[in-house]
């Protein structure tokens, strides 16, 4: 039922977005004002991986996430977090395996949450309104509300996507999220987080065709200090309307018809 609700809501939002302006994008005049917050930066368009770039990761010094969990990985893990990372069986990273994955997205179709959804090679779009900014994700498909220009509620209940509030700082959209559960991975290689994760996303359109996302992970339960990540997106031209539904039955079919024979012992 929840998925049905999210799907329906996404469709409604999609219609709103498609009817909001040319090219199905919300357009904001460059000189428009958003009350005391100043100008609203133009983040219109559909965003996704640049051509040729893979899902990769957020680690600035290791964008392909080939060092995760190795001695060369300088992510400031708490000991349990490093042990958990190295106990996982992701399909990507230095220890990537095709067999018996523990990835909750691939194993259970669990929500990927944020920020991992930005590593899934699908697109997303911002719908900027004065009180709520919506992010429509092609994957799911799902949508995420960001309450603008207000603080967090007191001790929000933990959820897959957390509670997000946002504001504009000049040309940058800043989203602050807390209230996560601890069930999602931060990325494709399985970096964990706790329910105390405090995530900051800073989106800036560094040129017309390029969107930069800077992340700050603050989670003292899982990491000894805050650490940063980055992801670059390119303006996309088509395809956003083709929703990517996560279906457990389809995953199971793929597993039986491809993954199992590919991971069978060599003859």
């Amino acid at each position: 039922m929840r998925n049905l609700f999210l799907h329906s809501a996404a469709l409604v939002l999609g219609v709103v977005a498609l009817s909001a302006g040319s090219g199905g994008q919300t357009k904001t005049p460059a000189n428009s004002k958003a009350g005391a917050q100043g100008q609203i930066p133009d983040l219109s368009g559909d965003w996704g991986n640049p051509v040729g770039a893979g899902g990769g990761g957020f680690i600035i010094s290791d964008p392909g996430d080939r060092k995760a969990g190795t001695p060369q990985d300088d992510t400031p893990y708490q000991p349990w977090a490093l042990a958990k990372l190295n106990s996982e069986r992701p399909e990507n990273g230095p220890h990537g395996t095709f067999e018996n994955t523990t990835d909750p997205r691939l194993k259970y179709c669990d929500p990927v949450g944020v920020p991992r959804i930005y590593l899934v090679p699908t697109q997303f779009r911002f719908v900027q309104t004065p009180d709520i900014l919506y992010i429509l994700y092609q994957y799911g498909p799902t949508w995420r509300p960001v309450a603008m220009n207000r603080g967090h509620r007191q001790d929000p209940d933990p959820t897959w996507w957390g509670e997000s509030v946002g504001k504009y700082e000049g040309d940058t959209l800043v989203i602050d999220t807390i209230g996560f559960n601890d069930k999602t991975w931060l990325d494709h290689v399985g970096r964990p987080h706790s329910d105390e994760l405090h995530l900051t996303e800073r989106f800036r359109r560094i040129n017309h065709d390029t969107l930069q996302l800077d992340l700050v992970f603050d989670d003292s339960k899982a990491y000894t200090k805050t650490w940063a990540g980055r992801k670059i997106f390119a303006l996309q031209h088509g395809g956003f309307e083709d929703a990517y539904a996560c279906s457990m039955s389809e995953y199971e079919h793929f597993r039986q018809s491809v993954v199992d024979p590919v991971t069978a012992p060599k003859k």
Partner: protein
Amino acid sequence: MRVTSFLAVVLLLSTTSAVMEHHGTAGYDMTNMVTFGKATITEIEWTNPHCQIRFDVMNDKGDLEHWTLEAPPPSMLAPREWSRKSLQAGDMVKIEFHAAKNGSPFGIIQRVTLPNGKILRAYPDR
């Protein structure tokens, strides 16, 4: 080498980033590209999490081999000029892919060349 007369192996010094797009490629030999010049399409499954392309080739012993290739999902193929009708059962095409490491007749597709010369890329060229 199971199908040497139909198979050209091209060694590529490449990274796996282009196909690390949805899930891992750990099961495939990403350093070698396999090419079948004459593959007969038998089925295409236009589905998540990955489309699947099935085809037959004749090996050098005259036996028919049945292959299955993993492909990106529809949401990624559509912007790359694919549709669920791009390949039809009976079509004879040139097909390039990375094969499974375990020697099974499976792989992950790179691109297809149609009889009219049009190239359909499942992933960007590397």
